[in-house]
């Protein structure tokens, strides 16, 4: 049983209330097609459980096979520094077929943030340490591909189909509900 070795920190991007009985952590790569496929499903799962679930996204870019993944992660962190992480996150996954620097710049501008500032952050690698630290925390926790989910700290080894994720979350809520 692989368990999450990297505890939540204030640097994490978190959706949902602190009081939620279940925390789901996703390790994802913005250029990974499976992660893009999982993205709307994750949103449905979050909607389904409402205030009973908290969601954390961490970066796991496989940059050698996904050349834009790291820049995308850094751009999302850049937006996160202005409190706009989740909008950028959604924007990247929803437009993954166009992923590249032009898309990242367009999304940043659409959020009303500075294109010049994100370019500078990318050149300087300002947010690279955060992205790398997410990655290493994932590796040490047994992330072996993307997306990988941890539900209340335990790796979810099922698929990311809605029913599988819901089942795993329910098990952690210790509530018996009809599937």
């Amino acid at each position: 049983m692989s368990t999450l070795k990297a505890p939540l920190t204030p640097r994490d991007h978190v959706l949902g209330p602190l009081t939620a009985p279940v925390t789901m952590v996703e390790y994802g790569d913005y250029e990974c097609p499976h992660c893009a496929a999982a993205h709307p499903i994750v949103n449905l799962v979050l909607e389904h459980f409402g205030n009973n679930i908290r969601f954390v996204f961490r970066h796991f870019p496989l940059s050698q096979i996904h050349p834009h993944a790291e820049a995308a992660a850094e751009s999302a962190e850049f937006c996160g520094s202005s409190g706009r992480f989740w909008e950028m996150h959604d924007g990247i996954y929803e437009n993954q077929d166009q992923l590249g620097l032009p898309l990242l710049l367009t999304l940043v501008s659409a959020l009303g943030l500075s294109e010049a500032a994100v370019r500078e952050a990318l050149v300087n690698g300002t947010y690279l340490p955060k992205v790398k630290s997410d990655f290493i925390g994932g590796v040490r926790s047994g992330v072996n591909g993307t997306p990988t989910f941890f539900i209340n700290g335990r790796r979810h080894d099922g698929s990311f189909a809605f029913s599988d994720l819901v089942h795993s979350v329910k098990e952690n809520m210790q509530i018996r509900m009809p599937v």
Partner: protein
Amino acid sequence: MASILPAGTTAPDFTLRVTPDQNLSLSELKGKPVILAFYPADWSPVCGDQLALYNEVLPEFRKYNAELMGISVDGVWCHEAYVEARRLHFPLLADFNPKGAVAKSYGAYRESDGVCERALFVLDDKGVIFWSYASPIAVNPGADGILDALEKMKEGDGSHVDTQSSSHAA
């Protein structure tokens, strides 16, 4: 599943093709930790993920001065194309002729399929197996076990960890 060589065993030496015109011997790597990753085949999806992952984790392995080698029964030309396509920054060795001989010497050959098992070995700087692990063939074992072993080895208590079976993984 084959019974892989356990921790504490001296790793059998070998010389294998690493490029069409170069050989590599395990004995050349004495003095630094070595990670041997036996895997079934180039191009197959799970191995792809596993090797792609190790490719990204290389800087961490190098913090321990460790050398990573992938080993499968694929030939050198196949390895060369695969390394280029996936931009792998570590060598793949061809256990090609006689087929699977090195894998067999590590107990990591799957006779029924004619391929290597998905097996990991971490060797210390003297060429002794410090940790070994056999994963179910369809399961990417990740890199956490390797890093844990390298870390324990560096702490230098000298005792060998253990040999783990797949029951530990899931």
